[in-house]
């Protein structure tokens, strides 16, 4: 017979005022298996805990029930108490007689009766408890950062500075990401390249950082502390070690058909190219789809001109397999496709551009060398209309627009408008807005400066349509404040397009079993208290992959993610949650149902020799990886042969509680 001890807490008057604690202790004493039952003023106090410890030792208890506050409050406390007295911490059950009884009931008899029933349920459960030991798993002291934009770079630098190895995997040939494409940054107007490129160089030179550019993560297996990633390093057709980045090949290349991705396709580049002057690594790459050699087998001009002998047409993709303790997702964003909005004539006129394209048109390294010229005829525009919320805050059609606010557009539009007015005071600038949202340090001041100092014309309303009329763009919109419809003959129209997660995010999310919302942004473990962690242990979030944000926010989130990574990597081993699923091999029929419902991929099937009274031989059985299992119990209910059970919340335990309550 088991020996159970019952401890009823008064919680001062919190419980004792409405529950007759003595009566509860007396009633529970007569339950079968209970050898000790008492009440005390504050069980969680040191004296209360000592009382529990002494009783466990004196009565050699097998399990204890504490009738007190919510287990969410003090379960951990009492488990430690039990452990200190030599009792397995999972032989503790809590009956919640404060939140569920004394605080919500007024009638003493009724409350006391309910407290007794809850106490009985806890006793019934603890009798079915089994001692559990948490498993441990080792930690590989290396982090993987997916994405080499400012978010990924910052996280990698912070982790690397703490002394851990970091690999950055970037799908394009250079790190730098979207920030490298920007001209100036709000609200200080310092140039993006000037503040970003030193960080890119630092990442490249850091002894703990290993850059894997032009590479993609192919698969990830494992779990927190010991992930295994397979990374495909795509063939550059250029020997990265030999290439000096001199750029001769890029000038000699006769193919000029490739659209320059860095300039948003506003101009073209050679088939062999270096994305931009400050690219890191500053190595050439051959775009095989546009290369004459790959299409016809002839040409090879780059090879002939390369004094370093770096061109390697026979280079193959390389697969790299490495172990990581933590993975940081920093996949970033892209602007949505503006051509879905036919009312803005984006497809009809070259002079209707997106804001990121406009950014390139204003940039000294851009296609116009920083002079603002109309893409159609290269003339200087005299009247520009900016349209905000193109595809943001749009709930009508998910394929076209996004329901969320993209957060950064109000500020970058104010920046563009201000820069145009500063550089070209003869240009009229109109901004159509729904709301101007500028919550940020020095943000509203910045926007007001655009209006007051630079004379940008902000119009509260939306543009209904843009039509091409000769060289002009006729913009028809509403001005809600003057209650008029306005018509503007503009030279250029700039669309502040919504931003969406990078298209690779979805497959990475699936690979990592990291949950995402309907917009493909990664979900955080808790929206307020754990904003940089994914609900999947060991996966961290950095930057826009979690939700729209500007550069300062991205950098602070990147640092926060890094600190979480460092916290994880500093541990030598991880202690798991022992309340995990477990398959009874004798009952398991190998149906794979549990494997399919597991949200964490914790269940695998193995052929195993099983010996039982009714079966002897090899069969296919489910095995739960205790380090991955989070203990939700989905598999236990799915299992048709009741082979799967959840430790700490087993079928027998819950049945016993049901029986005790319905007695």
């Amino acid at each position, binding site marked *: 017979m088991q020996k159970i001890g019952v401890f009823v807490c008064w919680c001062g008057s919190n419980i004792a005022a409405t529950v007759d604690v003595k009566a509860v202790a007396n009633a529970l004493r007569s339950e079968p298996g209970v050898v000790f039952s008492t009440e005390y003023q504050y069980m969680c106090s040191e004296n209360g805990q000592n009382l529990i410890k002494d009783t466990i030792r004196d009565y050699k208890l097998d399990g204890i029930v504490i009738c007190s506050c919510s287990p969410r409050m003090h379960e951990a406390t009492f488990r430690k108490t039990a452990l200190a007295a030599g009792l397995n911490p999972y032989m503790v059950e809590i009956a919640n007689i404060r939140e569920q009884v004394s605080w919500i009931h007024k009638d003493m008899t009724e409350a006391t009766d309910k407290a007794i029933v809850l106490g009985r349920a806890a006793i019934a459960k603890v009798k079915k408890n089994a001692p559990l030991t948490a498993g441990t798993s080792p930690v590989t002291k290396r982090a993987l950062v997916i994405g080499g934009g400012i978010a990924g770079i910052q996280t990698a630098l912070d982790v690397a500075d703490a002394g851990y190895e970091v690999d950055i995997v970037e799908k394009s040939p250079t790190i730098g990401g979207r920030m490298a494409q920007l001209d100036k940054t709000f609200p200080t107007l310092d140039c993006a390249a000037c503040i970003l490129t030193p960080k890119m160089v630092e990442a490249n030179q850091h002894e703990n950082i290993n850059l894997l550019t032009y590479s993609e993560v192919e698969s990830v297996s494992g779990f927190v502390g010991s992930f295994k990633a397979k990374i495909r390093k795509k063939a550059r057709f250029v020997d990265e070690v030999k290439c000096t980045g001199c750029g001769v090949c890029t000038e000699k290349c006769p193919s000029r058909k490739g659209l320059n991705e860095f300039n948003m396709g506003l101009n073209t580049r050679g088939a062999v190219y270096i994305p931009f002057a400050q690219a890191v690594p500053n190595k050439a790459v051959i775009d095989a789809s546009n290369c004459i050699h790959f299409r016809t087998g002839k040409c090879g001009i780059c090879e002939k001109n390369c004094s370093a002998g770096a061109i390697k047409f026979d280079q193959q993709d390389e697969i790299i397999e490495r172990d990581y303790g933590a993975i940081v997702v920093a996949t970033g964003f892209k602007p949505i496709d503006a051509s879905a909005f036919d*009312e803005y004539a984006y497809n009809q006129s070259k002079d209707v551009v997106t804001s990121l394209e406009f950014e390139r048109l204003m940039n000294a390294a851009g296609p116009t060398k920083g002079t603002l010229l109309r893409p159609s005829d290269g003339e200087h525009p005299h009247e520009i209309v900016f349209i905000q919320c193109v595809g943001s805050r749009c709930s009508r059609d998910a394929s076209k627009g996004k329901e969320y606010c993209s957060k950064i557009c109000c500020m970058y539009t104010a920046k563009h408008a201000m820069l145009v007015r500063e550089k070209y005071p003869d240009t009229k600038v109109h901004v159509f807005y729904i709301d101007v949202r500028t919550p940020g340090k020095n943000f509203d001041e910045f926007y007001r400066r655009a209006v007051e100092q630079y004379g940008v014309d902000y119009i509260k309303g939306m543009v*209904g349509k843009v039509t091409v009329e000769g060289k002009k763009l006729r913009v028809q919109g509403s001005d809600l404040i003057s209650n008029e*419809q306005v018509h503007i003959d503009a030279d250029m129209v700039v669309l502040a397009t919504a931003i969406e997660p990078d298209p690779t995010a979805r497959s990475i999310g699936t690979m990592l079993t990291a949950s995402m919302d309907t917009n493909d942004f990664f979900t955080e473990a808790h929206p307020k208290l754990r904003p940089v962690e994914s609900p999947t242990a060991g996966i961290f979030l950095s930057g826009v992959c979690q939700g729209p944000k500007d550069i300062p926010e991205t950098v602070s989130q990147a640092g926060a993610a890094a600190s979480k990574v460092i916290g994880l990597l500093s541990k030598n081993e991880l202690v798991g949650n022992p309340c995990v699923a477990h398959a009874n091999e004798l009952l398991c029929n190998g149906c794979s149902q549990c494997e399919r419902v597991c949200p964490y991929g914790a269940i695998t099937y193995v052929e195993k020799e099983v010996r039982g009274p009714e079966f002897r031989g090899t069969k296919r059985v489910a095995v739960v990886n205790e380090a991955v299992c989070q203990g939700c119990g989905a598999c236990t209910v799915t299992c048709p042969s009741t082979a799967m059970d959840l430790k700490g919340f087993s079928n027998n335990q819950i049945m016993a509680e049901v029986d005790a309550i319905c007695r």
Partner: protein
Amino acid sequence: MAANVTTEDILRISGVNPRKCMKCGKCSGTCPAYDEMEYHPHQFVYMVERGQIDKLMQSKSIYRCLTCFACLERCPRNVEPAKLIEAVRLAVIRQQGMNHMTENDIPALLDDKLPQQAIVSAMRKYKK
């Protein structure tokens, strides 16, 4: 005119939820008949929500709307202002009992060339 048409009536007739409106003004930015109207599409949404149905019913604006559905097509929040305007128009017709025929008169007017859709919509329209 009797002032007994409520916001609820208009919403029931139109099936529109004006609370979805985020007051961006795209409907009025799109409207080709804007300058003909006293109350503009975005104002319809706002005024129906505010219960100013009388003003709308008395305004000529309800007859200026071309029912081109541009506002409905462009609205980023799916508010459908054109349906509200149509509903106000209907409210006027219903109140004045201005329907010049009932559904019983329809069969006599049918001929083979009449599209099926027109018959269905006529039945719907004149059936009280």
